[in-house]
């Protein structure tokens, strides 16, 4: 199934919003961190894992999801959060550690939780898997609609918990999809160093479920494959495994010198930046006019500006609030 014109516009809009968001964060991240770069300083302290280049996976999958569907994300969650419809103001405020953030500043960028759209994160590799499988189980047991998607990196598939969750989803025939974002790297360790096979989609055979690898960081192809997998899950036909080739245009985290990358790799990736590519295709296919695309881009930029302004102008978290919300109210 190919995306409709509207779906294509939605995908492009969310890719651009995500990229603009990361650009804004990247710029602000360096405030207060020069001349000496110290992660602890500035309005956005801590580690920062940006999703530049990986937008096609988030939009290609989330285009098929509604707020009631469940998504679990990773330490690199912004693109998925945006595509899932997480409140952008509150998300930005959370990243700044503000009182108005999703969790009032308790979680931070690796721990974005938005219950309104069933979005959650874990910074521990592959640990979004169990909760997503559990959400799928819960929907099945309660007879409620909805599927659960766990996004993980290609590094995560070598974690024991990943395998355990895949098998559980398969043996219980749950409405679950694991989407592997293969950006080729787990920090400085290449996929080839870490995995004995080229396509992690082949591992689906170990669970007796469908597996598919999508090459080219192509939002259209991802949309199509995800559409099939999600339709199967909705129809009660069980889980699927997708591995999407994608590109990490940023460092692992901000401040990463990336000396481990082969010479020229980064430049080649920028040549294949999925956003200008999708723009060209939209125009070539006649799926959008220049004016429509400009409007989408302006809207996205304005949306991000508003979220950043909201975050900056919000009050800091109250220090003593650190001691609250440990247990359910």
């Amino acid at each position, binding site marked *: 199934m190919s995306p409709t014109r509207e779906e294509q516009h939605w995908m492009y809009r969310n890719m651009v919003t995500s990229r603009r968001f990361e650009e804004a964060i990247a710029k602000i991240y360096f405030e207060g961190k020069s001349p*000496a*770069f*110290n*992660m*602890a*300083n500035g309005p956005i*302290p*801590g*580690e920062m894992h940006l999703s530049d280049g990986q937008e096609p996976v988030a939009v290609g999958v989330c285009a098929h999801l509604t707020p009631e569907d469940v998504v679990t994300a990773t330490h690199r969650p912004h693109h998925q959060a945006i595509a899932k419809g997480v409140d952008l103001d509150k998300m930005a405020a*959370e990243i700044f*550690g*503000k009182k108005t*953030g999703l969790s*009032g*500043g*308790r*979680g*931070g*960028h*690796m*721990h974005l939780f938005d219950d309104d759209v069933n979005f959650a994160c*874990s*910074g*521990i*590799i*592959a*640990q979004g898997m169990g909760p997503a499988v559990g959400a799928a189980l819960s929907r099945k047991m309660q007879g409620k609609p909805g599927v659960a998607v766990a996004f993980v990196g290609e*590094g*995560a598939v*070598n*974690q*024991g*918990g990943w395998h355990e969750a895949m098998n559980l989803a398969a043996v219980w025939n749950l409405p679950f999809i694991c989407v592997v974002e293969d950006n080729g790297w*787990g*920090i*400085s*360790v290449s996929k080839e*160093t*870490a*995995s004995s096979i080229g396509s992690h989609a082949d591992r689906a055979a170990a669970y007796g479920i469908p597996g598919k690898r999508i090459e080219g960081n192509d939002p259209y192809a991802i949309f199509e494959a995800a559409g099939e997998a999600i339709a199967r899950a909705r129809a009660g036909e069980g889980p699927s495994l997708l591995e999407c080739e994608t590109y990490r245009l940023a460092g692992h985290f901000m*401040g990463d010198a990336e*000396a*481990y990358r082969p010479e020229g790799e980064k430049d080649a990736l920028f040549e294949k930046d999925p956003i200008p590519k999708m723009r060209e295709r939209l125009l070539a296919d006649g799926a959008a006019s220049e004016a429509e695309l400009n409007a989408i881009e302006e809207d996205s930029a304005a949306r991000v500006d508003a979220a950043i302004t909201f975050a900056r102008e919000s009050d*800091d*978290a*109250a*220090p*003593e*609030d*650190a*001691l609250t919300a*440990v247990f359910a109210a």
Partner: protein
Amino acid sequence: MTKPNERKLTIARAMAEATAQEMRIDPSVFVMGEDIGPLGGVYGNTRGLIEEFGAERIRDTPISETAFIGAAVGAAQDGMRPVVELMFVDFFGVCFDAIYNLMAKNIYFSGGNVKVPMVLMTSTGGGYSDGGQHSQCLYGTFAHLPGMKVVAPSNAYDAKGLMTAAMRDDSPVVYMYHKGLQGMGWLGTEAGATVHVPEEPYTLEIGKAKVVREGKDVSIVSCGMGVHNALKAAKKLEAQGVSAEVVDLVSLVPLDRETIRASVAKTGRLIVVDEDYMSYGLSGEIIASVTEHDISALKAAPKRVAFPDVPIPFARVMEQFCLPNPDKIVAAWDQMQAA
């Protein structure tokens, strides 16, 4: 501590140097972990090793902690001396069985027939807004479970000596290094951790604490980053005419209770500083070690300055509110006087 012209090293470089020196003389030593190869470790403690020893002995692993820590146990029992890294101590959750049910128990289960000479290096600590899954210390969690030695250096001199001692030990040693002491530029660093380190290999006795500042009014006991907070607090107290002694535990297991008790016997007062969670942990253990031995040694109820029993918050103001610091230690002294 450092004289002019003496070479100073960061803890990261001291750890790497100790490892390289041991690898040169002992072919059974090898290193496994995530990003410990070309990257040299996220916290720099394996920098330069792959260039000298190659990928056979310096092994970047998949993100498979259960597998490679379990593999280290097996290799250790089979004549190798693996050094493995759990990148952040917070990640112990995915692999603890290999650590506390295998690494820590196999010597005992074998009645001592089997040796498990391995080092598990792991980074600890927060203070830079890395959130609740990347900022913990978990000293108490590891030290609670029998069968593994646990060390936590506060400076590069100790770091090198402990690293060499750990690699030569026939029992498993958990080597907990604090990120804020590592000397990684991008993380900011406690200057007091970067000290003179002799070039030649040497060992520090595991299980021996150090009195790093002598005093007579109060004993402040801590490890790792807490030692630096304690030393800063001691300076502030000195300005108020209070003479504080600072004890650096260096090792958490075995715990040098003698040195702690001797210090408190002298000062009569005890403040324990712990970046780990307050309850059921290091601070309670230190206090119990003193009170169950001789409660009459104490002129005042002991105090602890520890992380409250909440997950570590991301927002800087919240995290800083929770973390121990010199002012909180001084305040603990004031409360002791007011009581």
